């Protein structure tokens, strides 16, 4: 059951087979979730956010792609499932990053919605719209890639 407040914010989600997979949790955000971290807020230019060293500390799509690159993601053509790879989708409004979703092994997508819950959805389009804008970049990395993304490592 998807809470009505989520469907109100993401109206395309209703037709995208949504499932709440994790309850609200302010300890991590969407970028951290895409990276595989559940104890940090990955966000640039923010005194209360973590941003990987060496990546431009600015809220741009290029910087977001570069940050995901520190954990093995490289740009790719699209969001179709590719065996052996996991993917991430970067969302933006007016070229300003707003969200990152990651693809699960079964080809579905998973979005940590701010401080709120984690929602599974069938396509990247499920959380496109007024809140997060639209997908502006896809990235992929070999399935099972770990390390490099956790604070302190």
């Amino acid at each position, binding site marked *: 059951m998807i809470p009505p*407040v989520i469907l109100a914010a993401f109206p395309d989600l209703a037709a995208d087979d949504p499932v709440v997979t994790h309850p609200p949790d302010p300890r991590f955000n969407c970028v951290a979730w895409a990276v595989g971290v559940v104890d940090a*807020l990955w966000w640039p230019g923010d005194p209360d956010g973590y941003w990987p060293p060496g990546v431009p500390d600015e809220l741009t799509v290029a910087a977001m792609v570069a940050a995901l690159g520190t954990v093995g993601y490289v740009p790719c053509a699209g969001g179709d499932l590719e065996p052996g790879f996991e993917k991430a989708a970067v969302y933006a409004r007016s070229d300003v990053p707003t969200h990152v979703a990651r693809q699960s092994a079964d080809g579905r997508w998973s979005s940590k919605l701010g401080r709120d819950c984690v929602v599974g959805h069938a396509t990247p389009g499920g959380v496109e719209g007024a809140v997060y804008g639209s997908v502006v970049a896809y990235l992929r990395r070999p399935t099972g890639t770990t390390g490099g993304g956790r604070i302190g490592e």
Partner: protein
Amino acid sequence: MSTQTVTAPALDHRFHILAAEWRAATRFAAAPSVAAEHPAYRAVIDLGPDVVPLIFAALTDAPEPWFVALRELTGADPVPPADRGRPAAAADHWLAWGRARGLV
């Protein structure tokens, strides 16, 4: 700042109204700073230092991004650089700071 630990009911009521408005309006924002720029959040800060114990009570419940407010209201910043970006750890540092001053 004040070290008052018993807050007036009106302040308590106002804080919880503003906090609920802020949570609802920023729940889907990935960036802590976006949350801290919301008018309801700024209104919490405008309540002044007496609201700090209420923020600590909220932090005890969940490590929400109250850190901007705490820095502005107290002038302190007990979170070491290694724990920036880790809300649970940051909340622990702030709560320890508050306990040492009788604010939690």
